[in-house]
């Protein structure tokens, strides 16, 4: 394993200060065109508080989903996003109206970040008629045309080619929008990812490929599945610039996203962001996660938690008091409780829905 990879693997496992990250990010962005922008965005008070609230909403929502799953109210597979919140929130803060997102089955966080009603998301998890897909999609398959969220896909890697098609449509229509295709470290070994990279660069499509490297694809670590573990360089043979980003620090995510989106919007083609992150829970609700140590998880939680990082900064800067933050938490909890309430009381879809929405 090369020195750089080692460094990267340590990145999330060692405590880092924000200033230290700058130099590292520079060395990690080989191939990234104009890299003059800082590795860490300077957040205003409003940005910090916005990020805090958004991430907390995802966290509380997912905790509640886990609870409902345990109660048998959510069926099938349910993949929680806990630990990875900074990735989607940072990207959401960087995007413009009209930019699209598409991801895999670990999609609840993306939908909340895309401003979808938590009630609709939760009710889809419980398979009720008020769910975003009328209860017919389930946890892994949710969409919102209105909010430019294109799913929610259960086939590992499919969203990469589909997201490339979203980028294609932007270029075709010359609408200035950028598509963000999120996928995992495991998905990054799928053949269609490279088919997509090739076409996207060949045709200069505005697509940001966001690899959410949470270190595991189900029970298999990146090291056990991938011949090269610096996933940001997976576009190198196509000439696609890529950077590794501290995906636990929402400011780093925003800074990198700004660069990536600007690159795409200015017609230079696709861009790869490898978000180095971590999921605290098992792959899905039914995964006891025996393939990693409790220490590993604990270390990430205590030293790198994306929400705690913001919380500490806001308090240190005196931008909010403990009470202020508690109030936010209370707000968020109420929102989530309301969504859970709705998701339990909303009726199941009418049986006539069985045969609707098959063809237009």
């Amino acid at each position: 394993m090369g020195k750089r990879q080692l460094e990267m693997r340590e990145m999330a496992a060692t405590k880092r200060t924000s200033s230290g990250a700058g130099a590292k990010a520079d060395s990690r962005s080989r191939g990234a065109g104009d890299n003059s922008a800082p590795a860490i965005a300077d957040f205003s008070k409003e940005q910090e508080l916005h990020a805090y609230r958004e991430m907390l909403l995802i966290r509380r929502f997912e905790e509640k989903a886990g609870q409902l799953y345990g109660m048998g109210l959510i069926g099938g597979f349910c993949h929680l996003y806990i630990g990875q919140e900074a990735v989607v929130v940072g990207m959401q803060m960087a995007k413009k109206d009209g930019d699209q997102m598409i991801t895999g089955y670990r999609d609840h966080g993306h939908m909340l970040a895309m401003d979808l009603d938590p009630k609709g998301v939760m009710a889809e998890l419980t398979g009720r008629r008020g769910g975003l897909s009328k209860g017919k999609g389930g946890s892994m398959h949710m969409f919102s045309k209105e909010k430019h969220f294109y799913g929610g896909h259960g086939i590992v890697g499919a969203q990469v080619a589909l997201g490339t098609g979203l980028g294609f449509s932007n270029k075709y229509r010359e609408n200035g929008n950028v598509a963000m295709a999120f996928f995992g470290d495991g998905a990054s070994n799928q053949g269609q990812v490279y088919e997509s990279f090739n076409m996207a660069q060949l045709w200069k499509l505005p697509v940001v490929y966001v690899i959410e490297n949470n270190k595991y694809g189900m029970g298999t670590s990146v090291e056990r599945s991938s011949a090269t573990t610096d996933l940001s360089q997976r576009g190198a043979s196509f000439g696609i610039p890529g950077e590794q980003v501290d995906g636990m620090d929402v400011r780093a995510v925003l800074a990198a996203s700004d660069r990536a989106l600007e690159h795409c919007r200015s017609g230079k083609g696709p861009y790869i962001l490898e978000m180095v992150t971590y999921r605290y829970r098992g792959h899905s609700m039914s995964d006891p996660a025996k393939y990693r140590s409790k220490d590993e998880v604990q270390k990430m939680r205590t030293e790198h938690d994306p929400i705690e990082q913001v919380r500490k900064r806001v308090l240190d800067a005196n931008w909010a008091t403990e009470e202020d933050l508690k109030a936010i938490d209370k707000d968020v909890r109420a929102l989530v409780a309301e969504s859970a309430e709705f998701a339990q009381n909303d009726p199941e879809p009418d049986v006539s829905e069985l045969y609707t929405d098959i063809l237009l």
Partner: protein
Amino acid sequence: MPIDILMPALSPTMEEGKLAKWLKAEGDTVTAGDVIAEIETDKATMEVEAVDEGVLGKILVAEGTEGVKVNEKIAILLAEGEDASAADAAASAPAAKAEAPAPAAPAASAAAPVAAAPVASEPAEDPEVPAGTPMKASTVREALRDAMAEEMRRDGDVFVMGEEVAEYQGAYKITQGLLDEFGAKRVIDTPITEHGFAGLGVGAAMAGLKPIVEFMTFNFAMQAIDHIINSAAKTLYMSGGQMGAPIVFRGPNGAAARVGAQHSQDYASWYAHIPGLKVVQPWSAADAKGLLKAAIRDPNPVIFLENEILYGQSFEIPDVEDFVLPIGKAKIERTGSDVTLVSWGIGMTYTMKAADELAAMGISAEVINLRTIRPLDIDTVLASVRKTGRVVTVEEAYPMCSVSSEIAYQVQEKAFDYLDAPILRVTGKDVPMPYAANLEKLALPNVGEVIDAVKAVTYTA
């Protein structure tokens, strides 16, 4: 010994071509590798190289001659010192038969024809084409191209992508001229990356564009079938009706000729299995044109299964501004009273010939051209069955879990009391497509098998 130069076959499905130009004259010396002539097929102009050395003794087919059959003698090559009289003698000898011997005809069809007066089995009018509509000749290839061009003129969101569709003008020349008219933005050469570009197309369709994705053949779409089924067919349902994929996947499907097992499969029943897809399998040029236009306008994913052997065939099609056929509607090609023959796509070629022969034998066959496989127009089939009481289906695909199986099931379910005989199916054989000419012929259905099946269900053996 003079050497015969024969009309070469330049593609697996070529049967004849035009001798466009001679590049050597009588009396010229030719060495192996020299280009001696140019030949035009419906797909391309190709150069013919000499394989032997000698003097071009006699040209037997003048340049500009159309419809020169493969293996016809086109010139005589003389060895050093031979004179022209040898060429004359050679010219009158029959051409060497390069084709493998045909398999023996099935015993039953070789039996003495049933003594009966010819009966009525009339070509039927297409209710979609009003009487008096002007008609013109068109190949299936031209019909497909025209359909795409017309729809692209009509709607700027329609674009076509696939391997070799633009600059090369299509591997089978279906997209001929489209690049010129619509430019590289809308006629897009893709890398060889079926899974990727199928997914890209579906993504673009989810965002509201209307892609036509050409597969060089549907055999290669197996690499893309995940996106066709999981992404294109299911999204409308999974999104509770919010977004679907208005996309057409099209290309040649089924057996061409002598291309072996991996290039010869008919996928109709695979796609027909899937809710959320429409599956169209045209036979004639009119089917091709009217249905492809409908497919492009359809807001759902449509699988459009063409056939390479049909591309060059010519049919009468309505010569009207905007000829669109309804998807999901079968066409009665011939009316008859003794038996219902149900077929689609290239299966129709056997079926129509069989119906002719049957008429001469005194059996009146009604021929239904399904045109669309999903949704299946079972009502048209049932109406016919209620009249004839007998059904034979004809297709080139494998028998197991075939479209024929489904038709047989639905007919027995919905018209059991009208049946006077078991439903029979004539299909491709249950084997990977063999390469050898004789085995390939055996693996495909033939007219004799259709006639035998009809005799069996009409108890006229």
